[in-house]
């Protein structure tokens, strides 16, 4: 394989898709880490309480909104 085969339109598409997948994976990882700390208290049980489950879901949404809010604020400065 010569190096030009790494740079075809097909491979470029592939790199782009994998890059997006990486962003998704990293975002989920980061948000899960933060929301776990906020929502899961004490010793883990055999399942989440409904409170813990909704906390996790809410937390993820609030994270997105926080991100948006900060972005907007920085843009307005």
């Amino acid at each position: 394989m010569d190096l030009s085969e790494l740079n075809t339109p097909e491979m470029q598409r592939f790199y782009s898709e994998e890059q997006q997948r990486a962003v998704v994976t990293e975002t989920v990882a980061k948000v899960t880490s933060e929301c776990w700390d906020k929502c899961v208290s004490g010793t883990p049980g055999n399942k989440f309480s409904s409170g813990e489950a909704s906390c996790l879901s809410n937390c993820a949404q609030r994270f997105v909104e926080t991100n948006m809010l900060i972005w907007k604020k920085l843009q307005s400065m």
Partner: protein
Amino acid sequence: MDSFSSPSPGSSQQMSAQELKNKLQSQLALEYAQQFLETVRGKCFEKCITKPGSSLSGSESSCISRCVDRYIEATGIISKTLFGGSQH
């Protein structure tokens, strides 16, 4: 493993685009798994090993096991909330 060529050391390998993609995806999957392991290890060590003893107790072991399950579940909840559908 490579049915498209018979590589010898130092020679250029004939790898199809699909094989290259597969190799890259495998490598990425491995790295994601590694990162996940490290994260879960940190969280569950924190939750379950509160007073380290001279050996891992039965309750500590089952706590870790439950913790891993819960963390995977939490990841699913977050993934679904943020991106919908089912993410791997």
